[in-house]
């Protein structure tokens, strides 16, 4: 077996994950989204990160 079927199965699984996520999550709202760049936005960073402590 070559690497091609491994990649195809993986990409299909990822696409399925994203599709399922879009269905079960709060509807996306591009108009309420943060600006393109955090730098200069005047807003504090709000994304989750591996280094964040529990409760942060």
């Amino acid at each position, binding site marked *: 077996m070559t690497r091609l079927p491994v990649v195809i199965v993986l990409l299909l699984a990822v696409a399925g994950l994203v599709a*399922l996520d879009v269905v079960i*999550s709060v509807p996306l709202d591009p108009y309420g989204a943060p600006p393109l760049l955090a730098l200069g936005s*005047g807003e504090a*960073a709000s994304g989750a*990160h*591996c*280094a964040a402590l529990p409760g942060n």
Partner: protein
Amino acid sequence: MTQPMMAVPAGAPRPWARGLTVLAGLVAALAVAAMAGPRYGALLLIGFGLGIALEGLRFGFTGPWRRMILFRDPSGLVAQMVCIAIVALVAFPLLTANGAELTGAHAPIGFAMVGGAFVFGACMQIVLGCGSGTLVNAGSGNLVSAVALPFFAIGSFAGAYHLSWWTDLGTLPVAVLSGTSGLAVTLAGLAAVAVVAMILAAPGKRTVPGRLWLAALVIAGLAVLHIVVAGQPWGVVYGLGLWVAKGATTLGADLSGSAFWAAPGNVERLEQSLLTDVTSLTDLGLIAGAALAAWWRDGLSAPAKGLSIRGWAAIVMAGLLLGYSSRLAFGCNVGAFFSGVSTGSLHGWAWFAAAFAGSFVGIRLRPVLGLEDRR
């Protein structure tokens, strides 16, 4: 007889097909931008670029550490130090001047953090893939990494679930180097590691190939762009744990017993789409970018190597431990080491020391676990 300038491997795509795939990547990023917002489309594109650079230029963490330990080849390790130094040169002043908008990968040193990094270092050598490496290798069709990846994600979810218990064992306050003096100490530390690696190098192995210099520049540029766009440094493992947590809650699991998953910020992430989660987007981009780079190189025609039953069992267990330990260590080679050190967190340095020590153990465990022949 004329020779072609460059041999194109059988199965590799023609130039027009390469152009179409780049276009497909751009369309995907634009689609995410239109559906979720421009920042999220940009983050997918950054992840995509990181995946192409890591796979296409063969820049990594696990392999270079293995080559340093086994063969005293410091080239990849030195390239890592250069890459982190470039990011630090930009990130330190950025964070100092824009502390209200930008944040570093800052976390505390503790017993579980150091132990987690040690276990991660061992397991990344067993799997031959770290946080970014497992995603990139899986994306390029490596069967071992593709099998390890879901277990990595499950481990990440479980490690985050139990994180408070582990941090309660003993954790120091968060210690961060900042400002010009902090940057100077960081650059001196990175230079010291590179110099020591060069001193320890085997004869004839003190040269860093051009592709690694290029990779260090490109990856550093994308990492800085990540900070500017997201307001936070590049990370990997939070997203993987989130995927499993979302799956678990969809199946009816109650995560309120976990201080981590019940925290307001994480509850919000569980409700919102992955297309608005920073680390999920770059993780998805890494996989797709690596797949594209591997396809460009040889059409994914290389054989997908299998393992013995014992080897597969070892990979599954190591995958789980990679995920679990990376949460206790406040990140993997990317979130803790690369992003921690480049934004001044001392836990990044502790992570590096512990994970490098763990790598010695992992390299010695591979033959014992049936993953390679005994030397």
